[in-house]
């Protein structure tokens, strides 16, 4: 089921076309990635979806009708790229004051547990580590039990363990509640978890599909051979019969081999001719 659609969104700043006529469809329950290098227009796109900035043209459809942010602000939670929490206030104050800004009843205890906030509950937000801050950010965005969560670069600047940890919690949440998540990232590996990926560059969506679809469309398979001598070779090769032939021919010389589709790195490289990092 389609939850949120953006149709031909464009955002012109006085001296910059930041987002150029892009369309997105976000299905209920999906994890959707906006992948792109710095300055691609990811945040600008997100900002239009959450009502922070007005599109120059284009429209947004929530559920099945054309909508403005007022119609669906109750249904979304947002974690901004630069944190918006109050630095001098404790985690507790940040969370509790926020909870009081909703008229509906809110679920706090399970959030506090899931995001392991007890140990940092009384600490000022500004004294937290990057990973702890992110946990609080996300927990706070979920206070109102939104259907749709927007995360702008949720894991930039975090180490790999923290990143994994955060995604574990988010995935658990998706399983438990069917939460839909839209996130931006410039980490290719991170986009590999997504159900659907939009690749953005210079304000445009240059490719979109599932991860498998993108790999199939934009990369060739890779054959990696590990020889008895300790040598390793990799060749791109999109023909399984050819691959089998090579394997059979070299069977005696090999310790191991791998035949796999290209990675998201390859997808990005092939689409833009440049590395993302």
């Amino acid at each position, binding site marked *: 089921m389609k939850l949120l659609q953006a149709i031909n969104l464009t955002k012109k*700043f006085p001296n910059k076309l930041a987002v150029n006529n892009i369309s997105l469809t976000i299905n209920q329950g999906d994890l959707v990635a906006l992948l792109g290098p710095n300055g691609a227009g990811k945040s600008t796109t997100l900002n239009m979806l959450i*009502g922070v900035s007005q599109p120059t043209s284009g429209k947004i459809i929530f559920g099945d009708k054309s909508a403005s942010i007022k119609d669906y602000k109750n249904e979304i*939670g*947002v974690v901004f790229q630069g944190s918006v929490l109050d630095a001098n*206030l404790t985690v507790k104050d940040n969370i509790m004051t926020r909870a009081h800004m909703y008229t509906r009843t809110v679920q706090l205890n399970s959030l506090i547990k899931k995001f392991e906030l007890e140990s940092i509950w009384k600490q000022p937000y500004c004294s937290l580590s990057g990973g702890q801050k992110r946990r609080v950010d996300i927990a706070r965005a979920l206070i109102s039990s939104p259907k749709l969560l927007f995360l702008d670069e949720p894991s930039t600047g975090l180490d790999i363990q923290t990143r994994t940890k955060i995604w574990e919690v988010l995935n658990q949440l998706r399983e438990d509640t069917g939460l839909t998540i839209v996130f931006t990232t410039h980490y290719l590996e991170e986009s590999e978890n997504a159900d659907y990926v939009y690749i953005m560059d210079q304000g445009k969506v240059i490719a979109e599909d599932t991860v498998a679809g993108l790999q199939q469309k934009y990369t060739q398979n890779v054959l990696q051979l590990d020889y008895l001598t300790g040598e390793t070779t990799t060749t791109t090769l999109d023909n399984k019969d050819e691959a089998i032939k090579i394997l059979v021919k070299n069977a005696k010389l090999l310790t191991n081999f791998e035949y796999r589709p290209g990675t998201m790195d390859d997808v990005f490289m092939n689409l833009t001719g440049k590395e993302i990092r």
Partner: protein
Amino acid sequence: MKGLMYRNLKIYFSNKSGVFFSLMGALISFVLYLIFLRQNMVSSWSSVPDTKLLLDPWLIGGTLTITAITTTLSSLSLMVQDRGKNTLSDLSLTDVSYLGIQCSYLLTAMIVGIIMQLVMYFMMGGYFMIADNSPLEMAIFPQIFGIIVLSSFIWTAFNLLLLSFVKKIDTLGKIGTIVGTASGFLAGVYIPIGMLPTTVQQFMKYTPALYNTAIYRNILMNTQLQHSFKNFPVSVLNSFKDNMGISVKWGSQILTNQQDSLVILSFAVVISMVAVLIFRFSRRVVISRA
């Protein structure tokens, strides 16, 4: 809205150095007075008995006005800060309406102004009670409290107007410094109004600060004025009041407390109306910053 006001108050009071700096103007006037202003004035009015007891409440009156100006500004600055970051957009995702968000900044600023004036009032009153045996009259407290609320109101409105022109967070610090310094002069605290050139005096009459201070001083000094001046003709008392900024004169007419209050209220109404108008125009700009 309660949740949001609570947040705003917490932010103001949890920033200790921020609280201190928002009182800077008031503290400067207090220290300046202790170090040399008082000495100066005591000697220039040496014919009047108990000059010290007269001047202590005089200082309190002016300092309370400064406090009202600077603390409401400091609290209201949060509005600009939230606007400058994505905080305002984030807040507008909650169930608090846009109007509610804006009102909560104003109400918070008023509450901060009231609390900080009370704190300053009792701090200075307590100090002078110990140091100079100046009485802290509780009988006038209800009146003082009324003026405290009125001052908070007018200066919140004034600062709202001032801050509607501020887009950048960096500008806030500069504005704070300018307002802090200017308020000391406009309220007639650093220098008694009578010692300033007439053009400056005239200009001061177009700002609400002077009237604010005058009401405070009128109430605070009333008892002591009657004591000190009981053996002088009324004209001497009136000229003292005029020179020291205890009452404001329009032409030959000396304004009463009620008239001062009315002047302040009219200022507040006009300022609020202008602020609301500007606010209306800029509303779209404010929500979507780009």
